[in-house]
């Protein structure tokens, strides 16, 4: 592969949620273009540890773009400059020798910083807990082929269900709105027949929790869709709004 790069990193360092953070500059030298962005940070961290300095803390796990744990704001964009990728799937060939890279955590009051680049996204869990499920117990369910679901419907529900819950939509939004995330789950169940019986109460419960967590409102800018690493569409938000409105007008039993 072509030559190695020398880079300047400006990284947000913050000891915990009680202290103020600041940018610290590091040099990352001899970085191969084949490295992933997180492997580049691994290299920097190994150097820091050797010097006895606390390594840069960041969340990451599967490094395959599916777990949704990595969450870096790179040069002003969630998950960096490439469209449709998570940070872990971003490779250094997207950068050039001599470049300065600014790395920040997600910025949203509903996502407080835990340390350095790691933030607390449990607000997302709580929204799901409020209604992101079908009320079925294990066992006693009908055969899987009892209800045929048109392929186009199943595929559309799948598209919504692929949300990885990383929070890039919130980080990208000037209002720190979580509408794309919430609407993806509401859409999946609004589309699938299994989600019909509770579609209105679900929409209300999840939206109420979203508001309680302090996420901002949606002003239809579309930054969330543009930055979503898995391509969750803005139409989900339209569907959520319809579900929510219907929920306000109709009773649950009139939904069907």
């Amino acid at each position: 592969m072509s030559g190695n790069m020398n880079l300047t990193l400006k990284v947000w360092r913050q000891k915990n949620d009680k202290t103020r953070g600041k940018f610290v500059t590091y040099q990352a030298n001899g970085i191969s273009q084949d490295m992933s962005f997180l492997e580049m940070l691994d290299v920097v961290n190994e150097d820091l540890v050797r010097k006895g300095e606390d390594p840069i803390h960041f969340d990451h796990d599967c490094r395959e773009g599916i777990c949704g744990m990595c969450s870096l704001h790179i040069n002003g964009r969630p998950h960096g400059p490439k469209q449709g990728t998570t940070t872990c799937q971003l490779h250094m060939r997207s950068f050039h020798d001599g470049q300065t890279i600014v790395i920040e955590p997600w910025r949203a009051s509903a996502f407080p910083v835990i340390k350095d680049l790691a933030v607390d996204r449990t607000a997302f869990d709580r929204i799901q807990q409020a209604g992101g499920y079908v009320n079925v117990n294990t066992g006693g369910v009908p055969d899987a082929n009892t209800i045929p679901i048109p392929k186009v419907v199943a595929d559309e529900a799948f598209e919504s269900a692929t949300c990885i819950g990383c929070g890039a939509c919130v980080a990208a939004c000037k209002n720190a709105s979580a509408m794309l995330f919430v609407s993806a789950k509401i859409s999946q169940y609004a589309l699938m027949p299994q989600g019909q019986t509770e579609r209105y109460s679900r929409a209300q419960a999840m939206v109420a929790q979203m508001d309680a967590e302090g996420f901002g409102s949606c002003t239809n800018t579309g930054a969330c869709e543009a930055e979503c690493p898995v391509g969750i569409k803005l139409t989900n938000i339209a569907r959520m709004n319809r579900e929510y409105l219907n929920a306000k007008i109709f009773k649950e039993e009139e939904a069907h």
Partner: protein
Amino acid sequence: MLDSKVPAGPLAEKWSKHKFNLKLVNPANKRKYTIIVVGTGLAGSSAAASLAELGYNVKAFCYQDSPRRAHSIAAQGGINAAKNYQNDGDSVYRLFYDTIKGGDYRAREANVYRLAEVSVNIIDQCVAQGVPFAREYGGLLDNRSFGGAQVSRTFYARGQTGQQLLLGAYSALNRQINKGKIEMFNRHEMLDLVTIDGHARGIITRNMVTGAIESHEGHAVLLCTGGYGNVFFLSTNAMGCNVTAAWRAHKRGAFFANPCYTQIHPTCIPVTGDHQSKLTLMSESLRNDGRVWVPKTVELAQKLRKGEIKISDIKEEDRDYYLERKYPSFGNLVPRDVASRNAKEVVDEGRGVGASGIAVFLDFEDAIKRLGEDTVRAKYGNLFDMYYQITDENPYKQPMRIYPAVHYTMGGLWVDYNLMTSVPGLYALGECNFSDHGANRLGASALMQGLADGYFVIPYTVGDYLAGLGFDPVDKNHPNFEKTRKEVEENVHRLLSLKGSKTVDDIHKKLGHIMWEYCGMARNEVGLTKAKGLIQELRREFWSDVTVLGENEEMNQSLEKAGRVADFLELGELMVDDALNRRESCGGHFREESQTEEGEAKRDDENFRYVAAWEYQGENQPEVLHKEALEFENVKLTQRSYK
């Protein structure tokens, strides 16, 4: 001899009869019991949700920032179930048979049959949760053939089946959290097991944000903590996957079974350099349409590696589709262990491709010609994108380069038919137990096992144990809680006092090299003996010359990593011991001393038809081997043949 508690009677009736014979806990009494579930992957989430639905109080733990991120999420290909929706001759018995055979006759018949039996319920359950499986135009569920199966029994959601199933189980988990039946602890790592009078009664965890070392008591503890593939440093596991919970339980009395059984998956993106932190799997569903080949001669391979010729310059007759050539009936779909060994063989011969020469081609040219690029994109689009992203090579235009990588561990904590370990009250589910896959796991069977254990086995079997306990709450003031907590604290401080010159990753990488070299795709007496010494040496190096920074009372990823690697350094030696002991080849365990004339794995049923379960004896003491004889009453043991 170990007692597996497999019930008597005909194979097909064992589970039904056993369910009837298991004791029940009265619905009104279930709330008097607390069950601890560690790990929230498919096994953990499904178990926690199902037990909470029954009325038990559940405390669930995961090290990630959310239970939804457990590594089950990354499973790509699909989940097997004996639904026979395709009318192609599938049945519970056939799924059972394929799994037993695929595991090279080193799994328990009764467990595997039960797995096949409940597989059909899993699909029903997931559909009822709103999991958007792939469907046909008529609206019914679609299936594909997967990983060596000759029937189409694999249900899937594009290349993201694990994600969709896990989010289904996560939704069931969330529902019970909302109802107050599950208390969820994110960013908590289990660091020890608390036993009272030999029974599991709680765990010690570290809060990974504050560093608080806490005790949690429960009437039973379920470990659903996944596999130990990261002992190899490079694997397809997530970065955080570790053996710590299982290993600490092992040190408290849980036997560790068949640790040497590791699965090296044939289709992964090859290693590019020393900086690499993990390997990425390309789902083996790709082998349904992709053809594996290398140049026929070493000379051609050399020219290709040096860039003197292009791939397209290699004529059809100069390409060796070695799997199709050697295994005409299974072709590219031979089981994983066979595909991996053959890749190693051609690379060792000098016919590998890519700059390093450590790779083979997986070619879609014919599939694209036959099906069209759009169809191929619809089937594998996300995998092709991922490959493109990582390698900067377009797989629609040139063949993928692939090479085997550590993927799954069939070994794990020994459990009986009820999934209970050798410590009463301690259970192991999913990949962290050893029970269902023998010496080699078939594709699309890991998701099946995780959910079978969590949704449909443990809800029955745990009740049988609890029903015998009485209703007293666990005594949280029992001195063993404080004692174990102190020991954990001391261990943490011991790690934090290490101020040497090596980083934890330095040691972990070295361990990985040793394991890959001597306890990887091919193993022999000399290499394994050498590895044992090297690991012992490395362990000394770790405890004398590694550096761990920071304090306990903060988020400290150095400390987390150090604790996990310390445990891997102990496990690694046990894996080598187990591989040394098993002087036969079976499934993923290939002892060079034991092969057929054609170079295939050769079992020694007379001497090794048993589960090797190891009992911990204390620091630096050799572990004691217990054997569980494997009885095959229904299938005839044969030499596996995929020709």
